[in-house]
């Protein structure tokens, strides 16, 4: 079964540093998403991306966050200046144009110290 893959699986970074989380969505999918889950809390929607632009974003997705599809396969989430409260598991997900099921990656654990 095709999978969404994410790298790194775990990253530790110092407060104020920039972080880029990478995702390779399923190859024929056109809708891409980032979600996050702070330890002990709910999985929260961050942003959806379609046709090379953001289609929806939540209040969490402020100016320190950005997404990009730099080439035909990768989908990245950048956090410009990390804060302690950005520590969370970040999930990438994708969906095909015709289907309605969202497929999730295994997540990237970000720890900000």
């Amino acid at each position, binding site marked *: 079964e095709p*999978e*969404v893959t994410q790298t790194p699986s775990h990253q530790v970074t110092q407060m104020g540093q920039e972080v880029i989380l990478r995702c390779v969505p399923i190859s024929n999918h056109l*809708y891409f*998403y980032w*979600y996050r889950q702070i330890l002990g*809390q*709910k*999985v*929260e*929607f961050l942003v*959806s991306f379609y046709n090379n632009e953001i*289609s*929806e974003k939540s209040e969490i997705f402020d100016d320190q966050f950005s997404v990009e599809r730099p080439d035909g396969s990768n989908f990245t989430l950048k956090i410009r200046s990390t804060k302690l409260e950005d520590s969370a598991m970040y*999930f990438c997900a994708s*969906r095909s144009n015709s289907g*309605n*099921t*969202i*497929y*999730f*990656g*295994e*997540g990237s654990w970000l720890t900000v110290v």
Partner: protein
Amino acid sequence: AQSVSQHNHHVILSEAASLELGCNYSYGGTVNLFWYVQYPGQHLQLLLKYFSGDPLVKGIKGFEAEFIKSKFSFNLRKPSVQWSDTAEYFCAAGTGNAGNMLTFGGGTRLMVKP
């Protein structure tokens, strides 16, 4: 704003016991409903989904869920659980464009004792 609540945070069952996990959502418009499962160390996997039609939906691994519009509920059931069902279960409601901005419940950790 939409919200999803799961009433049981932790459930412990013995093998062969029946399972029902509660899920209620709050949203006035058309909503798509999902149950995802996360096995230890793995990614979120779709168990089943409801978009329209028959309110009783069957998913993988013997799970089913019933959409009751009047109760705003989408409870997950399995008649006989196995040790391998030990996992965390998330209910989610999809809204927004194409119904895929998911709002998740807090999750229910299920432990099945062998």
